[in-house]
């Protein structure tokens, strides 16, 4: 490779290493393995899903091409819309609470005003290492009145708390589990971003007489906007994909959590209990598109504001 380089002294842009100027296929040797597996587990299923969504299994005549009929059906499907409404409500309430707490803790850690900062940081992060299955089982037990904390509180204070697993409250109870699982992870993302703000900015602000609140609003928050946007997008994707928590909690709250509780649960039930693979594929693609559009809009807006 090096033999192709012009001899020293020949003019070439000095600010770039020579290697960068030439394209070669060498890089493919390294990214090739990733690309092959990626094509197999990401691109092929997406293509196959689109293909499937255009067909329908009929009792008589087998599988036939139906064009966009599955999509039409999905758009008029009340079960689909009510599940989408449910996760949207979840998203609008749970995500701001979770990210808000995470941001407050990150700012508190970064302020240097805490005793035992490292201890707090690692303790609040710990739930991230707990599998969703374990987290949900655990909270499910605690929600219960038999050997749960709710029962404890009821007897200790002689009150009757509303049942967290009742139809009215189960969505909030799921929200609590998800918040518990991911508040520390998001905190760490924000905290890492706060740590790399150059200290010269703070010094300048202090000389100008800026207080803590002003430093947070004028320096810290704008500086970590990228991290905030990414965390929001991941949380949106997470909310729309909600499956594990309702699915694992369902045995405890069978009347409150139906098999079409979330869009993901609905597509799962259609495919694996109803054998409606084609229709399920169409619903999943619609959900995928909605998720991508919202994530994209959030990203554009988040980046533009005040940038």
């Amino acid at each position, binding site marked *: 490779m090096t033999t192709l380089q012009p001899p020293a002294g020949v003019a070439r842009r000095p600010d770039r290493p020579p*290697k960068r100027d030439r394209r070669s296929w060498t*890089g493919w040797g390294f990214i090739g393995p990733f690309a092959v597996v990626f094509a197999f587990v990401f691109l092929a299923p997406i293509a196959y899903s689109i293909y499937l969504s255009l067909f329908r299994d009929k009792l008589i005549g087998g599988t036939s091409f139906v064009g966009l009929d599955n999509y039409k059906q999905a758009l008029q499907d009340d079960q689909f819309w009510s599940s989408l409404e449910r996760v949207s409500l979840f998203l609008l309430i749970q995500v701001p609470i979770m990210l808000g707490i995470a941001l407050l803790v990150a700012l508190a850690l970064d302020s240097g005003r805490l005793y035992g900062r490292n201890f707090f940081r690692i303790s609040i992060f710990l739930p991230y290492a707990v599998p969703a299955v374990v987290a949900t089982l655990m909270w499910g037990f605690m929600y219960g009145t038999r050997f749960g904390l709710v029962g404890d509180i009821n007897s200790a204070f002689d009150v009757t708390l509303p049942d967290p697993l009742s139809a009215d409250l189960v969505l909030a109870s799921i929200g609590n589990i998800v918040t518990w699982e991911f508040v520390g992870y998001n905190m760490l993302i924000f905290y890492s971003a706060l740590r790399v703000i150059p200290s010269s900015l703070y010094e300048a602000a202090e000389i100008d007489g800026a207080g803590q609140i002003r430093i947070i609003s004028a320096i810290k928050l704008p500086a970590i906007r990228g991290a905030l946007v990414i965390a929001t997008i991941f949380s949106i*994707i997470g909310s729309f994909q909600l499956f594990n928590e309702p699915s694992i909690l369902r045995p405890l709250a069978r009347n409150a959590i139906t098999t079409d509780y979330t869009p993901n649960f609905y597509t799962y039930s259609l495919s694996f209990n109803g054998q409606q693979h084609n229709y399920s594929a169409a619903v999943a693609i619609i959900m995928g598109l909605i998720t991508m559009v919202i994530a994209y809009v959030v990203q554009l807006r988040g980046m533009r504001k005040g940038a």
Partner: protein
Amino acid sequence: MSSTSSPVTTASQPPSAQSGGSKNTPRLRTRRKHTPGRPKRSVLLTVLTGLIMLYTVVPLVWLVISATKTQDGLATSSGLWFSHKFALWENIHDTFTYHDGIFVRWLLNTLLYVVLGAGGATLLAILGGYALAKFNFPGKRAVFAVVIGAVAVPGTALAVPTFLMFSKMGLTDTPWAVIIPSLVSPFGLYLMWVFATEAIPTELMEAARIDGAGEIRTFFQVAMPLLAPGTVTVLLFTTVATWNNYFLPLIMLKDPNWYPLTLGLDAWNSQAQTIGGDVIFNLVITGSLLTIVPLIAAFLLLQKYWQSGLAAGSVKE
């Protein structure tokens, strides 16, 4: 940054990834010393943050305490204090031996999925990240755009077609159905890309080549050692993803002999809810504790590595 074409360009700061991850914290600490008027510690703020910490830690305390109780003790004693009988060792013994030791089998399965899935994912991410960071090759921008775009595709849209594809190939109900999809970690690729850009000086690669090293040798002898802190981070996060995976095995596996721990615990729990099923909540709880201990230990032991690696990713991300 002006571009908004991909999430990756959202950072307003250059990445702070250094070659030595452990150097991160001390450097930041010295920064604070130079800040005029070092902030006074606040009891009020500590107490408020302490409340959040109670929220995250109390359920784990509940889990540890509950794992020491018998089935009866669980029902009759308070959730946050021990019952009269301390049955932790008994519970652990029963968890490992119940149903001919199926829990051990699930543990070994999980380890297999983690070693091959997370290990493979990390290896592919290192190779790919190195390529993106240090080579200019045809289709590079396309590769990057496709990978970033795919991250936004919900797992839902993929699960069913992947199942049907694998089913036609006879891969469902085999370990491969869990391992192969685990091999791709777009987040890992991204993290390694950012990390490799910072950690490997191009001049060093040039020097190795001039000395006659081939590409493979340059990679193993020059690049790999410099990538170690990033590798630990990616390995830890892909391990968590594989260890905690539930949805994919749920779809792909029918035979309980291939279950990972997560699916096994869920099965034990559901069994107690069915009529006539053996009620083993004490084993579900003890099994849950045993499932999270290795990961929490890994996070605590490797703290300084993964925190600096994550800082590298979160900034530019």
